[in-house]
């Protein structure tokens, strides 16, 4: 209760200084990252932070002040500073902001987890990573074998001037490994489970489930084999994407495009805007009828799951694309109010010292009824691509080009030669209109993205993207530099 009361002091001082709404988050965060390269520990980094961030609404602008000093006097000063900063914005005012209504609750939430990751011994984690890299190093031509683990343990106490009192304990764990083969004039890399590792909400059981040891040898052999593989063919082909690459495709070409703050122009200068226009919500054709996307912050284990967002809105499942038609957005209380929509509970900050903003939760593509093997068997001339290597998309989330680590030719229903440097490019709605096969629930994975950047100052969010492998009828592949 003491932490609620500390935060409450900041809220009250913001109101006294002129704010018409204020909230405060007291956040204690602990994290750990371990990196091993070629059998040697490169770094063990642990971090701890604590502090309070106060948000005050005056006129058309949010003012925000954060401090690690949690003394009574500092918290009162922080609340007043937040209101004063908001008031300074009156030099360049907009229309007064209002906040969409949400239930005022007192509640607690904790991520379901079995083994608290920070309580697992350091030596057990290091031993796992060292063994994995040594397995990869045993393969000829592997010059770099690296492996990493990361975990976060975050506790938040949120209070608002409307009466919210919410405490949350979030636990996130993940990791991965990669092998790099270095040739005369090129590098080739393979990674597992995906290029940034796999992160989920949950404890160390996440790491045990992904079974690093069983996959290290195969990954290293694939990296070495890529050096001698032919280049990805150029031209228009049928494209099959394995799940983690399709997850990134969703993140970049759907997840960011449906952020309501981008649609409203609030991110125009940096992250960009969106090709979507609000007046077409409910009618715009985003893709084929196989395309069913939800933003679901209630999915057990998915990285973008939580109990309440950083405005106190309960987590929820929101339809985004229904049989190819765009029907929903990612929103917060202010943006939803402007758009006349219900708030989606998608406003989060990456620490006590950052202003909460619209972020993806778990924006995922619901599974279909095919399978990867069936898709291959039903493809005459195509390419299968796996595991992201590079990603680039324009500021409206339309024109994209992605590179993958590995590909295979598909000829007459059979997986053929391995190919290197596979890339594909397209325009978002044209691309999604080509989706003609989607694998089913057995291959549906809640992929995690632990490094989504947005905002100024920069914030990094942890988001989830459920996906199974999918097939796209005609896509330009093999773009060369």
């Amino acid at each position, binding site marked *: 209760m003491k932490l609620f009361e500390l935060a409450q002091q900041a809220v009250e001082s913001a109101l006294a200084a002129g704010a018409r709404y204020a909230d405060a988050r007291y956040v204690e965060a602990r994290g750990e990252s371990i*990196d091993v390269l070629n059998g*040697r*520990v*490169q*770094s*063990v*980094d*642990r*971090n*701890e*932070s*604590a502090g309070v*961030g106060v948000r005050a609404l005056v006129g*058309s*602008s949010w*003012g*925000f*002040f*954060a*401090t*690690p000093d949690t003394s009574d006097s500092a918290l009162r000063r922080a609340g007043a500073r937040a209101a*004063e*900063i908001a008031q*300074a*914005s009156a*030099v*360049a005012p*907009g229309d007064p902001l209002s906040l969409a209504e949400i239930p005022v609750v007192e509640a607690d939430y904790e991520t379901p987890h079995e083994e608290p990751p920070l309580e697992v011994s*350091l*030596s057990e984690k*290091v031993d796992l990573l060292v063994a994995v890299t040594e397995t990869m190093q045993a393969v000829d031509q592997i*010059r770099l074998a690296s492996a990493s683990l990361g975990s976060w343990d975050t506790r938040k106490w949120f209070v608002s001037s409307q009466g919210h009192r919410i405490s949350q304990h979030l636990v996130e764990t993940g990791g991965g490994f990669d092998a*790099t083969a*270095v040739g005369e*004039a*090129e*590098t080739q890399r393979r990674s597992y489970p995906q290029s940034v590792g796999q992160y989920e909400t949950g404890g160390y059981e996440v790491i045990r489930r992904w079974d690093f040891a069983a996959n290290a040898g195969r990954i290293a052999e694939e990296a070495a084999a890529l050096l001698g593989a032919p280049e990805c063919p150029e031209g228009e082909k049928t494209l099959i994407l394995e799940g983690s690459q399709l997850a990134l495709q969703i993140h970049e070409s759907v997840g960011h495009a449906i952020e309501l703050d981008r649609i*409203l*122009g*609030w991110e*125009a*200068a*940096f992250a960009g805007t969106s090709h979507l226009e609000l007046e077409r919500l409910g009618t715009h054709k985003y893709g084929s009828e196989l395309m069913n996307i939800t933003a679901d912050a209630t999915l057990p284990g998915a990285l973008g799951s939580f109990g309440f967002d950083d405005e106190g809105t309960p987590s929820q499942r929101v339809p985004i694309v229904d049989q190819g038609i765009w029907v929903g957005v990612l929103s917060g209380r202010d943006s939803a109010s402007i758009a006349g929509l219900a708030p989606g509970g998608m406003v989060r900050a990456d620490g006590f*010292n*950052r202003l909460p903003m619209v972020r993806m939760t778990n924006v995922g593509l619901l599974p279909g009824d095919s399978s990867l093997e069936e898709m291959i068997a039903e493809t005459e001339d195509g390419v299968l691509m796996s595991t992201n290597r*590079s990603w*680039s998309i*324009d*500021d409206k989330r339309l*024109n994209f*080009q992605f*590179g993958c680590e590995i590909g295979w030719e598909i000829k007459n229903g059979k997986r053929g030669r391995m190919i290197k*440097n596979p*890339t594909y490019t397209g325009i978002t709605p044209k691309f999604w209109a080509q989706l003609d096969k989607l694998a089913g629930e057995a291959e549906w994975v809640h992929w995690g993205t632990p490094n989504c950047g947005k905002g*100024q*100052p920069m914030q990094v969010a942890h988001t989830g993207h459920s996906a199974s492998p999918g097939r796209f009828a005609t896509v*330009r592949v093999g*773009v*060369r*530099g």
Partner: protein
Amino acid sequence: MTDSLDIARRAIEMVGDRAEAEAVATVGRLALTRFANSFIHQNVSEDTVGVWLRVAADGRVAALQGNRSDDASLLRLVDGALEAASLQPRDEEWPGLSAPVEVPDVRHVDPATRDVAPELRAALVRDFIDAGEGLLGAGYCDSAFQEQSFVNTAGQEATGEDTRASIDGIHQTGVSAGSAHQTSMAIGDIDGSAAGQLAADRARRGMDAFDLKPGEYEVVLAPECVASIAIFLSVYGFSGKAVNEGQSFVELGRQQFDPQIEIFDDPLSPGALGVPFDTEGTPKRRLGLVAAGVTSGIAHDRRSAKKAGAESTGHAHPQSAVWGPVAADLVVQGGDESVEDLIAAVDRGLYVATFNYCRILDPKTQVVTGLTRNGTFMIENGKITGAVTNLRFTQSFVAALGPGNVLGFGDDTRFADSEFGAGFVRAPSARLASWNFTGGAEG
């Protein structure tokens, strides 16, 4: 004694003789005023405290980071680091601590930028917005002050402070956008009106853009584009770790670039930013990276230097063991031609204001894909004749600056945003013989 120096000393005293240790402490304030749709919608400020402690106990290394400076919190940090280190295998590549050595007495500090009132940032934003009458402005104005100190158990101490201010924004017509950026040590140097006028001019000239067929074009690149090229060369190429691992294009002593290319890291000159030492306590100094087109330098921290049999060049940061040391006070040497002169020399080509969302496909070849943004213009017979919709490129950055491909540099060197943030690169405009555009608005 400064606050940060006191924090770093106390942390090292708590370690005592239990381990080798180095501490970096920071105290500062970061404030940022953000605007969109021509009004201020977010206005933030924070007091910052940071403590980074790395210990090496009998060759077993661990690092901890926190944001509390009271004795109890520091002791918890110290004990946690020592415990983490004790559970580790020996780090055979641990390079040891920096010995006591003099650090240059250079301070890139403007007193007026230490604690900027939100009203001043708001006024600069107002100037930017007003310069684009009838347009929609968006962007930010920020100010930052940081005091940083380093102390280690080998007796090295260093302390410094720095300030920075930037304005970065766009104006939008509804069908086009133009951008502008300014960064300086002093907020008094920031001219919101001038930045707003440049952004507005680019936006207005960008209307009625047409789709250009992708292909190879001669280009004149504005400083933001050149800064993006430079930071990619630095992060993925001039990093000692990348070189050690065989992932870099760098071949010392070889003519890898056009003879006009001079690139160096210049942290101490007037107009630079930051403190004069790195997070291992190594003094910073000028480091030549490319001289007359010949690759001449590599950025090292103590770890990559030990492996290479070299000396640290003062480019450590808290994550450099994993991500590699980075030269981030980069200067690309300018020329003596005006931007107008560079454009006037082009028969048929493109002028590009900024790149967007650049991503590397292969660090060894430096092939990068990205897009143009906020101003892409057709040049015909030495004149800008119209606007072009944004283009995608897939281009080796090393090849782009390769022998014979550089046709001139502008006299407009300034801090340019490189997509990695403000204040890392000073760059001019550049005229290059060829740039590989691989896609247009329609893919």
